[in-house]
């Protein structure tokens, strides 16, 4: 299993699950589908289908404007 933090909230997922599953577990998927971006530990944007590593930290950031 993996422990992931989404905006500080800890969620547990089975290995092989993705960013999308972490957002579902944290109740945050809707925000991202509405336009917010997901940022990893190093400040890079990640896609919803991106693989996760145990201990990963994700932040949800509202989009400042059109990319």
């Amino acid at each position, binding site marked *: *299993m993996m422990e992931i933090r989404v905006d500080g909230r800890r*969620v*547990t*997922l*089975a*290995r*092989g*699950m993705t*960013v*999308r*599953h*972490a957002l*579902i*577990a944290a109740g945050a998927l809707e925000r*991202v*589908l*509405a*336009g*917010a*971006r997901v940022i*990893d*530990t*190093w400040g*890079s*944007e*990640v*896609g*919803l*289908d*991106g*693989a*996760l*590593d145990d*201990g*990963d930290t994700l932040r949800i950031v509202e*989009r400042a*404007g*059109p*990319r």
Partner: protein
Amino acid sequence: MFAHVAAVLAALLILLVPPARAGQEHLRILHLNDFHGFARPHQPPGAAEPLGGIAYLAARVQALRAGQPTLLLAAGDMIQGHNWANLTRGAAVIETMNAMGFDAMALGNHELDFGQPALAERAREARFPFLAANVEGLDPVRPYIVRTLGGVRVAVIGLATPETPQATHPGNVAGLRFEDPALTLRRLLPELRRQSDLVVVLAHLGHAAERRLAQEVEGIDVLIGGHSHTRVAEPPTIAGTLLAQAWEHGKALGVIDLTVEDGRVVGAVGRLEEIRPAGAPQPEVEAIVARWDARAQEVLGQRVGEAGADLDVRNARSAETNFGNLVADLLRRTAGADAALFNGGALRAGIRRGTVKAGDIYTALPFDNYLVAVRMSGRQLLAALEHGVAAVERRDGRFPQVSGLSFSYAPAAAPGARVRQVRVGGAALEPARTYVVATLDFLAAGGDGYAGFGEAIRSGGDFESVGGAVSGSAIAYSDPGRWLRDLLIEYWQRQGTLAPGLEGRIVEVE
């Protein structure tokens, strides 16, 4: 007109490339990862405009190649994902990559999703090698290649994620052994160094693991990654290794410019170019995309079987339905589970009695859901059922459709105390007993508020991978590479005619 402009741009590009000093060479590496068959431009959530489009990306590749020695590399997960790719088991992607002139591709976990025979077929079609040095037992895959570019010998070694057995159906990895990537690399680096001036690692490990690898293993000049779909806009240098990754779905192309002097890298700069459907697409690739689009439409129009009854979706958020029974039975049987439970909201359209086409099933089950089976206690299963019926008056999408179990509930009772009798496999539910319950990944992650699956995963510990088969105390089955709709199509094709009915699995009581 476009050809003229392109020629002028190409000429300008040649002039802009810094002149090589004696003994100095300029090389370019273009890279892509996690394409997942997104051939057409698409608008991701929140984006102001469409991004991607493989024919537009191909045009950019063509322009960036002009004037200097270039490698075009893919860091895995290219052939599975979007219907455009799945409906041809990745053949459309390979033809596209052949036309673009890819030099090599690392093996991603999703390359195995269609099984080893299909992978072997794709490898035969490809005019470039599939690379994975840390995988034993897979014939079509090579560990590395060495190419000479502008007088510089470049080794490209592939690495697959050792978590592949947890990220695809166990049958797809039967007989394969995945070694720790750092061990593989340390073992092969001396051999690579003897044969080359420059070592490029093409990895499908995820950005966190790729950072660790760059930190731990000396002697890598460039590490191009994938798997985590990370948009590494400004590739960092970690312990002397340039670390890059180009997001996902063909929305960006990675560009790495290297200066090599006397067989040593003296300059390495990476960047991402976002791909937009502007300008002219590369015509050959555009034609390939259109041809496979048409083929995908043909497949969607093909007969799958016959429905002996109308499959009901209108009541799936408030009652047992025959469509829900069919899908729940499929989940339970496929996973070999005691029971199955999924959310009625996963069913989006009914299917009329008569001939059923693949497109009907794609419309009914549009989400990219896959099958997961979780070992959970009877108490947790009961809690899941309580949650499922807690908002039945709102016709919430969480309402359960079930198989292998039956239950009664009182909709007028307070939420959380509505479920009455539960029977699993014909016997009364035992709160302390462990049951294997098949569901969808959406619910296993806690979707629609189902917390019980996550609780079971949390209390159950980790996976084990033994000889390519996955076992773990919580996850009994997981097949992330096969969408539910594809599972149903295959099942219907085998059965011919399906006429599911109502069986009293969910009963309302006063």
